[in-house]
């Protein structure tokens, strides 16, 4: 199978997975005994008002019609109601929050920069810290350095990010006030303040998440360094730095990339706990708001958006894999 056919097949199966997730979300959220029209209707809610609100929101239709118009809305937009009071939701329409009078896509677009700032910055840091310490531990195998890094990594994977985040806020923002205790400043408004507000969440997320990367990098490096091709390279007189960084690390990075793609994709969909601890209004905060206000449209739209990010991340990882490692496409032929 050539590489383009493989990529095409992976894209097709990703689309199928997204469709299945949409179906699952619909079945769960619109068949459970919560009536979105009832919630939007207000009090007192007469039966006539309720049926008018249901017709307006489209919830009087059978679920498969609702799902059809939802999916159609993503591509061509949709209009709720008719005449003067109609609400237009432009494509890509992921639903409309009648509580906030805003399309879900717009809400997501407003909040995404916050979450993306947290996620991308932290991810870059944890990849650097994790891979560097993993390589170091592998090279110093069974020494005090290795033991210390391994021990710290078990502590790191065991510590809940929100607990450490809270302790960091108490220590560095409330007791000795060198960092802000939370909040977010737009990059375009003030890049320095943007950075200043992000340092603490980045460090907390990065140091804890790096632990997992240290462990996987160490295991992979130890495995690679004991392979025959490394011995051959050494006997040919290839410098040790080339062996470690060019040969071993390159192969060791493949599983690390898989983990990185999934972690970053998941975090971009909403850094719920981190946003809560550092009071940042990102996607996770939007989701929590919609939970406390029973805003189902936002719930479904945000969950779907998060799912798509994870799937895209997975897709990118698989494509990178097939480019770096020809065995992937050959093996599935």
């Amino acid at each position, binding site marked *: 199978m050539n590489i383009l056919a493989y990529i095409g097949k992976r894209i097709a199966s990703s689309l199928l997975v997204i469709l299945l997730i949409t179906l699952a979300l619909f079945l*769960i959220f619109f068949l459970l005994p919560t009536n979105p029209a009832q919630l939007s209707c207000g009090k007192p809610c007469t039966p006539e008002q309720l049926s008018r609100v249901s017709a307006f929101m489209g919830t009087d239709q059978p679920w498969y019609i609702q799902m059809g118009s939802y999916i159609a809305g993503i591509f061509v937009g949709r209009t709720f109601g008719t005449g003067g009071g109609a609400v237009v939701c432009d494509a890509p329409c992921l639903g409309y929050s009648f509580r906030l009078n805003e399309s879900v896509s717009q809400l997501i677009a407003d909040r995404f920069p916050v979450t993306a700032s947290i996620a991308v910055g932290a991810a870059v840091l944890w990849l650097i810290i994790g891979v560097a310490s993993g390589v170091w531990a592998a090279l110093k195998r069974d020494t005090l350095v290795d033991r210390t890094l391994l021990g710290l990594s078990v502590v790191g994977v065991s510590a*809940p*990010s929100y607990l450490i985040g809270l302790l960091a806020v108490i220590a560095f923002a409330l007791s000795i006030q060198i960092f802000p205790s939370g909040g977010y400043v737009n990059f375009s408004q003030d890049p320095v303040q943007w950075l200043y507000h992000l340092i603490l969440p980045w460090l907390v997320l990065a140091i804890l998440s790096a632990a997992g990367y240290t462990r996987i990098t160490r295991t992979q490096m130890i495995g690679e360094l004991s392979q025959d091709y490394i011995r051959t390279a050494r006997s040919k007189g290839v410098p040790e730095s080339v062996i470690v960084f060019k040969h071993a690390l390159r192969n060791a990075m493949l*599983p690390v990339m898989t983990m990185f793609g999934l972690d970053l994709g998941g975090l971009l969909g909403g850094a719920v706990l981190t946003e809560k601890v550092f009071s940042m209004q990102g996607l996770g905060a939007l989701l929590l708001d919609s939970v406390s206000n029973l805003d189902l449209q936002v*719930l479904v739209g945000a969950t779907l958006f998060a799912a798509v990010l994870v799937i895209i991340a997975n897709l990118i990882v698989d494509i990178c894999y097939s480019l770096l490692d020809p065995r992937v496409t050959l093996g599935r032929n």
Partner: protein
Amino acid sequence: MSEVTAPAGGTKRGSAAARSTATGASADRSPYLRSSIIVGGVIVLLFVALAVFAGPLSAITGNDPYAEHPEALAGSVPAGFGGGISASHWFGVTPLRGVDLFSIVAYGSRISLGIGLFSSVISLVIGVALGLLAGYFQGLADALISRTMDVFFGFPFLIFAIALSVVVPQSFPRPLLLTLVLGFFGWPGIARLVRGQTLTLSKRNFAVASRVMGASPAHVLWHQILPNLMPLLIVNVTLSIPGRIGAEAGLSFLGVGMNPPTPSWGRSISDAVQWALVDPMYLLFPGGALFLLTFGFNLLGDGLSDAIDPRKGVRA
């Protein structure tokens, strides 16, 4: 632990291991990993004892996790040293209402351990059954199960669990809901492991011989393949429990997990935040318990993993 608290902590590790090339490192079992079984095991056992005997232990000082003790408070904060630590309140009391903190931590361990263990059992049953089916019969069964696994891996678990807490009526018991959700979302990692192993094992001589002698698929799967999977499954489940415990605590911390007044470490941590500067002990006891139990399971899992496959060194 990363923000993404997937129910199966083993998930990401499993995927990485599945794609990695076999490691040929030949290491001796390190003393570090042997002692990690002992230390991790002792920590886990202590918490199991705490959970089982939460009632009698709290009763020694005549406490329970609900009764209020205004006499232990000075104003709204606990009176005395370390958040009100005394002979009758070993971990002090909570601010505002003066509830015994030791009882909260002890009863909270029931929730953490109970949800962690029971959801593992659910994931294990689903994951083993589907993994065996996919790996042994392949073809259509494999295609269907593998696509389903893709859907589950694509689900943003934490976000979905938060969303689900809204639509499930409050009358539905929360411990049961969390156990079901974590169990139902935690199986794909196990299924992937079992499927891969079954693919290999079913081609080995002993399985082929059994089939040639006329054994039914059920017999081969149950008597030939499953026993060979046990060590891997034990390690995988042990390493997945911290993720499950963390997910319950995380959801309760966000206010969408356990409802008050049921004791839960995550909710106590969330309650303790606003008191952190005046009464740090309120944050440190439940937080410390959560960390220690997770740490214990991780140590135990690392050690067990090394014990079944010493070549691997420490699991990634």
